[in-house]
């Protein structure tokens, strides 16, 4: 320790705030340096004087009695339970408010990569779709035949879109479930890529984690889970829930979804399809199929 450092550490030395090593260094320095020892003694004396001065007089004689009297007579003593209760209520409501605010913020900002419906659809898509027909109960490329088969087992009509002029090819289907509700499952093949279509009665489920978009006048909900793109929409009149899942890009999924929607209803006037889709002629239900089955692209 040097003489320059002493004024900076002398106070801490006297108050015992230095580390053991620094205390030993200071001690060593004070033993060797007379000038710094003088500073130390001066500081120690000042310290003593300040303590002496600070503790010179006592509180006025009546102060204690006055405080105690105030506690007993004024509202302080009597009202403290009420005030405490009010304070606690305030704190609790504050926490509740914060929790609600946090929930709202989380709902609006956080991504929900694992919504239950998305997870269920994606896993079933991988289970039935990636086997390329192994898990199917009926293998057919005819939508009408597949629809009849579904109707017989599910009790409600399922209209599958005509894919005659589309790159998708119907592979087959099976009975599945969505959110514990019986569902029709149809597997399509699009250039070697599996595409799953689920059709079920509308079921209530949490919509958080899904991104809502309007495409071609239709309200669709999108999500993506581990490379699997998902979209669902509702068919209000028929009380159906449709969900399409694919490992490919989302655009193809949207095209397919719009095809399903158009197959169910005639396009209302004034609602235009996106240019990209409008340019592609959509096959109307019942239109003559030019090709009932497309060869699978290699």
């Amino acid at each position: 320790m040097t003489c320059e450092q002493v004024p900076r550490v002398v106070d801490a030395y006297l108050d015992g705030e230095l580390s053991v090593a620094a205390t030993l260094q200071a001690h060593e320095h004070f033993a060797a340096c007379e000038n710094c020892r003088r500073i130390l003694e001066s500081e120690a004396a000042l310290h003593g004087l300040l303590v002496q001065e600070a503790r010179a007089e006592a509180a006025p004689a009546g102060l204690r009695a006055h405080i105690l009297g105030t506690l007993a007579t004024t509202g302080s003593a009597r009202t403290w339970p009420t005030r405490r209760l009010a304070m606690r209520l305030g704190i609790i409501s504050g926490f509740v408010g914060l929790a609600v605010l946090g929930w709202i913020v989380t709902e609006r900002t956080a991504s929900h990569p694992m919504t239950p419906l998305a997870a269920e659809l994606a896993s079933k898509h991988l289970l039935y779709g990636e086997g390329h027909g192994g898990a199917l109960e009926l293998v057919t490329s005819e939508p009408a035949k597949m629809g009849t088969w579904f109707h017989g087992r599910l009790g409600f009509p399922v209209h599958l879109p005509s894919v005659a002029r589309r790159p998708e090819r119907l592979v087959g289907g099976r009975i599945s479930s969505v959110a514990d509700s019986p569902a029709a499952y149809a597997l399509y093949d699009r250039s070697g890529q599996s595409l799953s279509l689920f059709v079920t009665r509308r079921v209530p489920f949490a919509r958080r984690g899904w991104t809502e978009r309007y495409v071609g006048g239709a309200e669709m909900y999108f999500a993506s889970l581990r490379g699997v793109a998902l979209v669902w929409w509702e068919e209000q009149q028929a009380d159906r829930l449709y969900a399409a899942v694919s490992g490919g890009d989302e655009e193809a999924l949207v095209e397919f979804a719009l095809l399903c929607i158009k197959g169910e209803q005639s396009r209302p006037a004034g609602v235009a399809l996106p240019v990209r889709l409008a340019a592609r002629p959509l096959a109307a239900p019942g239109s003559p199929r030019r090709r009932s089955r497309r060869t699978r692209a290699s």
Partner: protein
Amino acid sequence: MSSREQATRDRIRRFEADVLVHLDDFYRAALRLTENAAEAEDLTQDTCLRAFERLDQLRSPGAARLWAFTILRSIFLRRIERQSRTAGVDVIEWPLLEAGEVLQDTYEALRPIQHTPLGEVREALRRLPLPYREPLVLAHVGASRTKRSPRSWRFRWAR
């Protein structure tokens, strides 16, 4: 005697034993800070009343002293802030110095400090700007363990 009255009495008894036992130190600190006996009494009383109201927050009787000093300090600073707003008092005209910054030169001129009369120390302390006086007073009364203003206080003073 109703159970409520009994509870109040017990509370006052606990308050006397844990907090009011340090009354002299509260008053001394208040006196050094306010430099006015009447204000010091007022500050001490307000500190005690608030400590009594918040007695439930006190978990350990051993912490009562420092806890009550925290309340005193808080009430005092709030008053200073209010005064400085209404009376236009600028409590920060003095730059804050680092520890030991001016000591080196002044040591040379020091007479043996041991012989300094207590009144002179008191006067010197009184003349010290509040940002310096406050931590010094509280440290020597035993209200805090350090003579340096906490950083948060410096911000407060510097506003």
